[in-house]
C-alpha cells in the first residue's frame, strides 16, 4: 500500500523499490532507508519477496561484495532490516535470466552473449521505470561457472553471518498466445554451441552451416525434442547447483510469469499510444492456465490502476500466494476464502509446451475447455504429482496422452487411478509395451472395462472413487469440430462436472472461484464466484445461463457494470474499464 501523503518523486521511488506483489528490490535504494521503507509497507499484503541480484554482488570474476564495498550489498543488514520491520520474507534466487534486472541479472563481466529469440533478435525488456534490460545467455559455460561460484559464496555468507532465511529458486516465464516460455529459451550462438556438443555426445548428427558453424542435422521434429532435452538438462543443472550450495536455506522452486515480459512486448510497451490492456489481460489468463504465479513488477503503477490492478488484487491474495508457495491446490487460511475453481489438469511435457495447444485443439479438447470451462483448467508441465497428495485435488479430471508416456509416468498414472483420481488417457501413441502393461494391470486388479463406441472407442473402468477413461485420439482428430466438442461434453457429463455456462461476444475476460459455505449458507454445497473484467474500450455484454443446480445470490463490487436476473439466467453489462463479481450457490445432486 502506498502512503498517499508521499510526494510524486517519493511515490516514484517507492514504486521502483516495491514494484509489485510485495517484491522488495533492495539494490534500488540506500541501505540507510531499508528499515523506514519496509516499516511503511503494509504487512497485510502477505510475505515479502526479496529477489537477489547476482550482478549487484559480483563486479568481477574473483571478488564478491556482500557489504564490504557497497552497503546496499550487505545481506546481513538487509536481513536485520526485514526482521526489524516484522515482515515474513522469502528470498528469491533467479535460476533463469530475469527481465527486471540489468543484463538479465548477470554481472556485466560475463554478459557477453546476448540471448536471442527464435528470429535472432536480442531479448530485451522494458522495466516499470523505463529502463531497457537485455538478457544474456545462460548457455555460455563461463556463465555457469560464475553462477556456481555465486551460489557457493551466497551459501557461505548466509551461514557465516547467520542469516537464516528461506531461499526459493525463481524460474521466470513469459507467455505468448496460449503457451508459456521459459526465459531459458534462447537461440544464441552460445546455445547452439552447447546444443551441438550435446548432440555429439548423444552420437546424433551435426553438420557445418554455410557460415562454417556446427548446426544440428536432424529432422525438425527430432531437433525440437532434442533441444528441449538439452534445455531441461541445463535448467536442472542450474537448479541442482543452487539447491546443493544453499541446502539448509533451500525451499524449492517457484515458477513466475512476468506480465509484459514477452520479448515482443517491448514494442507496445515502449509506446504511449499503443493500447495493450486486453493483451496484458489475456496474458494473465494464460499465466493462470499454466499455473504460473503472476508478477507485475515490469508494469508501471499507472497501467496497474484499472482493470489489470483489480484482477491482480482479486487473485493474488496473500492466501493464494502462500498456497502457491506450498504447491497446494486449495488456498489456506480462514474459512470464507475463495480459491480458483479448477476442473481439469492437462499433463503435457513442459519442454514441449509449444506443441500442446495445437495437439489439444486437434482433439477438440481445447475448444471445449475454452468455451465451457474458461479459466477452469491448468496445464501441468511436470509429472511430479506433488499436488496430488492434497485431498482437495481429488475431483480434478486429469488428462494424459500416450505420446507423453514412458514407463515411470505410466506407472504414476495407474497409481493415481488406484488412489481414487479421475483419469482420462489418450492411448494413441502409447508404446506397445505400455499397452501390454495396461492389459495386465486390468487383469491383475480384476477390473471390468465397459466399452462404448462414440466417434472413437471409449473404455471406462471404475475402482472405488477412481475412474479411468481410455480413448483413441487419432480417430477423434478426423472428426468435425462440433462432433469433437460433443464428445468432450459427454465425457464431462459422465464425470458429473457441474458448471454454469457464460456466453457473450468475444473477447470475454472472466474467472471462477469457489469457497465452502458458511453457517448461513448450509442449503448450498459450495459458493461460486464469477468475476468479469472489461479491459477493452468497448461495452461488454454477456449472459450466465440459468441452471437448476445453481442459485444466483448477489452482485459483488460492481464498477461501471450491472447484472439483471432474467428467466433465462443473468444478463450482464460491463462498460469499458469496468468489472463486477456475481456469487452463485451450488446444490449438488
Amino acid at each position: 500500500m502506498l502512503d498517499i501523503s508521499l510526494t510524486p518523486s517519493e511515490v516514484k521511488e517507492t514504486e521502483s523499490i516495491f514494484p509489485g506483489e510485495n517484491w522488495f528490490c533492495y539494490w534500488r535504494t540506500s541501505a540507510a532507508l531499508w528499515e523506514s521503507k519496509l516499516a511503511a509497507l503494509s504487512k497485510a499484503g502477505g510475505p515479502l519477496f526479496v529477489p537477489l541480484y547476482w550482478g549487484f554482488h559480483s563486479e568481477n570474476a574473483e571478488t564478491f561484495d556482500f557489504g564490504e564495498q557497497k552497503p546496499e550489498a550487505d545481506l546481513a543488514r538487509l536481513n536485520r532490516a526485514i526482521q526489524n520491520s516484522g515482515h515474513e520474507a522469502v528470498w528469491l534466487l533467479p535460476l533463469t535470466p530475469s527481465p527486471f534486472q540489468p543484463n538479465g541479472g548477470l554481472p556485466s563481466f560475463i554478459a557477453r552473449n546476448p540471448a536471442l529469440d527464435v528470429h535472432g533478435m536480442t531479448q530485451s525488456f522494458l522495466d516499470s521505470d523505463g529502463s531497457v534490460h537485455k538478457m544474456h545467455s545462460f548457455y555460455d559455460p563461463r556463465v555457469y561457472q560464475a553462477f556456481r561460484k555465486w551460489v557457493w559464496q551466497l551459501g557461505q555468507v548466509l551461514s557465516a553471518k547467520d542469516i537464516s532465511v528461506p531461499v526459493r529458486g525463481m524460474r521466470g516465464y513469459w507467455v505468448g498466445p496460449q503457451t508459456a516460455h521459459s526465459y531459458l529459451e534462447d537461440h544464441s550462438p552460445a546455445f547452439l554451441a552447447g546444443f551441438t556438443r550435446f548432440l555429439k555426445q548423444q552420437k546424433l548428427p551435426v553438420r557445418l552451416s554455410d557460415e562454417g558453424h556446427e548446426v544440428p542435422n536432424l529432422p525438425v521434429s527430432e531437433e525440437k525434442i532434442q533441444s528441449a532435452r538439452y534445455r531441461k538438462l541445463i535448467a536442472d543443472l542450474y537448479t541442482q547447483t543452487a539447491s546443493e550450495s544453499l541446502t539448509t536455506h533451500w525451499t524449492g522452486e517457484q515458477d513466475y510469469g512476468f506480465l509484459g515480459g514477452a520479448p515482443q512486448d517491448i514494442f507496445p510497451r515502449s509506446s504511449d499510444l499503443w493500447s495493450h490492456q486486453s493483451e496484458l489481460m489475456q496474458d494473465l489468463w494464460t499465466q493462470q492456465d499454466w499455473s504460473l504465479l503472476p508478477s507485475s513488477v515490469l508494469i508501471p503503477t499507472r497501467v496497474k490502476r484499472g482493470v489489470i490492478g483489480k484482477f491482480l488484487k482479486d487473485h493474488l491474495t496473500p492466501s493464494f500466494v502462500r498456497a502457491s508457495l506450498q504447491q497446494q491446490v486449495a488456498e489456506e487460511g480462514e474459512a470464507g476464502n475463495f480459491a480458483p475453481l479448477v476442473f481439469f489438469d492437462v499433463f503435457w511435457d513442459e519442454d514441449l509446451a509449444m506443441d500442446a495447444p495445437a495437439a489439444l485443439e486437434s482433439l477438440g479438447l481445447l475448444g471445449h475447455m475454452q468455451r465451457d470451462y474458461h479459466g477452469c483448467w491448468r496445464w501441468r508441465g511436470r509429472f511430479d504429482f506433488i499436488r496430488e497428495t492434497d485431498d482437495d485435488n481429488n475431483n480434478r479430471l486429469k488428462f494424459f496422452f500416450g505420446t507423453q508416456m514412458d514407463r515411470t509416468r505410466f506407472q504414476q498414472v495407474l497409481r493415481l487411478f488406484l488412489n481414487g483420481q479421475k483419469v482420462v488417457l489418450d492411448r494413441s501413441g502409447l508404446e506397445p509395451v505400455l499397452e501390454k502393461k495396461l492389459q495386465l494391470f486390468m487383469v491383475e486388479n480384476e477390473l471390468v472395462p465397459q466399452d462404448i463406441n462414440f466417434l472413437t472407442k471409449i473404455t471406462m473402468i471404475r475402482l472405488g472413487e477412481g475412474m479411468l477413461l481410455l480413448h483413441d485420439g487419432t480417430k477423434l482428430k478426423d472428426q468435425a469440430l462440433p462432433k469433437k466438442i460433443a464428445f468432450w461434453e459427454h465425457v464431462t457429463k459422465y464425470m458429473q462436472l457441474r458448471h454454469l455456462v457464460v456466453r457473450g461476444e468475444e473477447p470475454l475476460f472472466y474467472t471462477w472461484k469457489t469457497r465452502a459455505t458458511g453457517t448461513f449458507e448450509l442449503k448450498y454445497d459450495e459458493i461460486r464466484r464469477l468475476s468479469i473484467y472489461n479491459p477493452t474500450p468497448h461495452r461488454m455484454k454477456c449472459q450466465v445461463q440459468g441452471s437448476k443446480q445453481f442459485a444466483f445470490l448477489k452482485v459483488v463490487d460492481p464498477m461501471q457494470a450491472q447484472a439483471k436476473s432474467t428467466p433465462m439466467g443473468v444478463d450482464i453489462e460491463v462498460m469499458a474499464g469496468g468489472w463486477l463479481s456475481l456469487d452463485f450457490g451450488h446444490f449438488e445432486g
Partner: protein
Amino acid sequence: MKEGLAINLIYHFGHDVDSEFPDLAGRYRILYFFSEAGPVSFESQEATYVKLFNRPATHPVTFTSLDDLKEFAMGVCQLVKAPEVFVLSVQDYNVGVEAARDVRAFREIYRRYGLNLSNPDIINRGPGLFGKFFGNNRKP
C-alpha cells in the same frame, strides 16, 4: 491505423541454420510492422502485396529480394498515409538495442538504425494553410 505516424518494419533474412523455419531459407520475412499506435493490419499488407506483385500474400509476408521488401514497405506506407517508414534488419535492431539503456533511446532505434523511406505523397504535398503560417520549413 492512425494516420500521420511513422511506421517501422523489422525483417529477418532466413539463413540455412534456421531449422525452425526451413521453408524461409533465402527469403526475407516481416517480423514486426507497426507504428506507435499499434500493428499495421494484415489487410493493409495483403492489399499492398496483391497490388504490387499481383499474387496472394502469404502470412507472414515474405520476399525473395530486399528491393521487393522495400517497395512493399513504401506501398504500405502510402496506403496507410504514413509520412515515412523505417526498415530494419534483425541485425540493425540488435545493434540499436545494445546501445539503448532506456525507453527514450529505444524509441530512437528505428530512426537511428533503420533505412528511412519517405512517403512522396505526403512529402510533396507541401504545407497546408496552417503549415504556411506556423511550419518550420521556410525558405531562407
